[in-house]
């Protein structure tokens, strides 16, 4: 068991190492000077056209250590990463990347985790109903619909939802995390406001999520229902419902739970587009704004966090899987 855990950790660090080396190296082999581009954007925004950009770039390069040889930059990069020092924002200097990410993360975690859990529960239940041999026939008609829903990129639902709920009916806000005029306090008014703003982006995710969770649950369950232990459970005389729940659903839930853990690992990355469409103040919007501001350090830092988050989730899945599935033991 210790050996298994040790192996998994070794692999985890290897993944982190290679992934972060890639995030360091790849942008640097692609031509382009991010500092210059960022400063040009900034200068244009400030209306100062005739500053000596070159001198400015030089001072910035010095400040961020970008004039040093590559291997030194690489060592610095790791050193900074280990201390979770992700550098400064180019656009908002002297705001640090870490402070920007910290400010954005709660928003993303909030609406995404609610959406993921809700979609998981509703989707899995729906998938179970679809695989239940005694459920009404019309349920089968839902399958193509779910297939369509889970095939379409979900941010497109976002546009349609804004159009229906915000533009046509005007009952929900079209974007943002809260009303701009609202002063954020720890009170019910703020909470309700935030909730109202989270409904549409979350709904877009839920629509998509319900479709894909339901389809995967149905597929697993149909396979499970063909297993010998289902026949034997029926031979014991247990009622269909009992066999289905205790013997079918219980086994089919295992891969679903793995999927849920992975979905949580990708939580920071998977909402990027929906947040940018809804102008939602989370990680996605941070990266979206950084793209248009050419704020390269913010992009780099955010991606590093996403990679860390995803690989940690994979590690956790590997470590807890033997706990939820008694068949799999550590060490084998």
């Amino acid at each position: 068991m210790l050996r298994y855990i040790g192996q998994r950790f070794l692999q985890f660090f290897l993944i982190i190492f290679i992934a972060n080396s890639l995030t360091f190296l790849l942008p640097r082999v692609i031509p382009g000077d991010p500092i210059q581009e960022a400063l040009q954007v900034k200068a244009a925004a400030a209306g100062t056209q005739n500053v000596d950009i070159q001198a400015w770039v030089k001072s910035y390069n010095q400040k961020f250590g970008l004039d040093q040889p590559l291997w030194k930059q690489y060592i610095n990069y790791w050193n900074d990463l280990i201390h979770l020092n992700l550098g400064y924002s180019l656009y908002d200097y002297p705001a640090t990347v870490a402070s920007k990410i910290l400010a954005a993360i709660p928003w993303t975690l909030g609406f995404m985790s609610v959406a993921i859990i809700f979609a998981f529960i509703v989707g899995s239940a729906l998938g179970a109903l679809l695989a239940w041999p005694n459920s009404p026939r019309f349920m089968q008609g839902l399958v193509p619909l779910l297939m369509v829903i889970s095939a379409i990129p979900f941010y497109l639902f976002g546009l349609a939802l804004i159009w229906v709920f915000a533009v046509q009916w005007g009952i929900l806000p079209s974007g943002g995390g809260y009303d701009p005029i609202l002063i954020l306090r720890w009170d019910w008014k703020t909470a309700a406001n935030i909730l109202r703003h989270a409904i549409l982006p979350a709904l877009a995710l839920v629509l998509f999520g319900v479709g894909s969770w339901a389809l995967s649950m149905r597929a697993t369950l149909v396979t499970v229902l063909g297993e010998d232990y289902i026949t034997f459970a029926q031979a014991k005389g247990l009622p269909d419902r009992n066999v289905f729940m205790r013997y079918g659903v219980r086994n089919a839930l295992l891969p679903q739970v793995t999927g849920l853990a992975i979905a949580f690992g990708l939580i920071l990355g998977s909402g990027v587009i929906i947040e940018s469409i809804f102008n939602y103040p989370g990680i996605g919007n941070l990266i979206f704004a950084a793209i248009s501001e050419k704020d390269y350090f913010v992009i780099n830092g955010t991606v590093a966090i996403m990679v860390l988050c995803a690989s940690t989730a994979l590690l956790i899945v590997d470590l807890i899987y033997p706990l939820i599935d008694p068949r799999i033991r550590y060490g084998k």
Partner: protein
Amino acid sequence: MAAVKRGLFRNTKLNPSLIFGAAILIFIVAVSFVGPVVVNQKMARVGAVDPNLAPTAQNVFGSDSQGRDVFTTLILAVPPTLRVGLIAGLISVFLGLSLGLVAGFFGGWADWLIRTFSDVLMAIPSIAFMILVVARMDRPNIVVVSVVVGFLTWSGTARGIRSMVLTIRERSYTAVARANGETELEVLFREVMPNLLPLMLASFIGAVTMGIATVMALEVLGLGNNVIPTLGMMIFWSQRFSAVLRGMWWWWGPPIVVIALIFIGLFFVSFGLDRYLNPAIPINRARARARRAIQPGSTATSISRGAVLEVKNLKVIYETAAGVVKAVDDVSFALRPGERMGLIGESGSGKTTMATAMMRLSRPPAYIVGGQVLLDGRDLLQISDRDVNRIRLKDIALMPQAAMNSLNPVMRIGPQITDAILFHMGRMSKQKLDDMVGQALTKVGLKPAIARRFPHQLSGGMKQRAAMAIATILHPKVIIADEPTSALDVVVQQQVMSTMGRLQEELGAAVVLIGHDMGLITQFSDTIGVLYAGKLVERGSVQDVLANPYHPYTRLLIDSLPSLDGKHALVSIPGLPPELLNLPSGCTFHPRCPLAFERCRSEAPAVQEMQGGRQVACHLYPEHTELPSMHIKLDGVEATEVPYA
């Protein structure tokens, strides 16, 4: 090559998802070829028409805020979008294929390296990584972007191909090819490549989807090329000019519909391909139909005198794509209380089908189409679901084949016993329940502590004993033991069988022991029934049948047994068991029968009553009173060479 054809086109009926998806994709591809030629491309330039026009007859989808005709832009946006997918898909499949092949064939550290690298790629959220790369580019080049996407998405394909290569390498024909002096590489190309085609097709569709989705996501985020219109850029532009909030539905609506069509087409094609690759996925609707298919036999439910269970004219069919198969054909027999009946047959003779049908557990594609299973004056095949549930386990219990898989892997043994007790006997105290479970486990030679274990913590023999404990816990009148020891080694087999014999004596239950092992069955049973191609061809007491078999098939079965005195050489039965789909005419055994004559080829023999309550289905009787001696060489090698017509 033939193997591929069978794999990919096994289902003769075309799969509706595949047709639907392919139709959509063909339509889209056609538009991408014809569209740009037909439309006036100038209309898609900035400022070609007045901005913000609502749809009119001339501009079907109006114009955007920069004065582009939306319809023309939309048509022109389709080919670059598809091209992105094509490039990413080709690169991804190429990389996945070659790396997967390398990993599968060479193994060792090459395999380790590739697997680790694909793990890394799985851990990197591809969209985040692409943002990182593309944000550095001055003007994002979609070709470069799609190439990078291809490089990021090969890991799934590589994994699939690797495991497929490993499976194929294990298969015998690869070994045969190697034995014929072919090099590893020749084997790779000639034997393995064709088998990979179906998987590659599915991987390609997956990579195309990934490619289009990733590039589109980047474009929507603003990381696209502002000059070339693509579907993603159209969404981005409409977003930047707040088209949704300004109510310009004609601007963002049409591209969404086209995007949705592309993804739906791809999804349905890959779903359809999956159906071909894994045809085992059963169709839900068929499951529900199984019960309705039971045709009432005779309404009389009178059971033969002295019998506890009577099977009358039982017929079970399999509905397969290739046609209807009669798996159990008109089988009848009666069972006395406490009788140990052995039911013997080769694989494919309908043994397990019989067992499940007698419990009314047949599942599609198996359907019980006729006959009766009478127990206590009731026809199991006619009573309600609720009633049949009450009878199962309490009056008639199944001891399953392959107990390895018959226990719920995620439930401890105890609850798997108690749920049955609670259902049949109602609530009872925890103490009493534990006692019952403990007793049942002790009776089959297990410690009561086993109740707290999971099935995977038990050995094969222990699992079989646990299944035996479940089957006997309510003291059923009839136990159907379906090859209960086939998965165990010989020593454990003997132990389990002796436990079963002891248990049977204690309970006084009638047992139907189903199996293919003549020795094991005759040792255990009082009476024996011989199944051949779904028909019961002989039945009688074990002593009578062994001493003086009536049916030639039974004779051959007995002669195939090794005897301790070593007086006769081993005989194997000539030919192969018949294919149920393509049964011989007349008596289904005639092609293998040394005594077959003209009548056997044309007319199926009926079951005849013989002396001493025995039954046989053979045309030799009643002309003969016993089986004539058979002139086949008692030499296993020559006998097996009797051709099977």
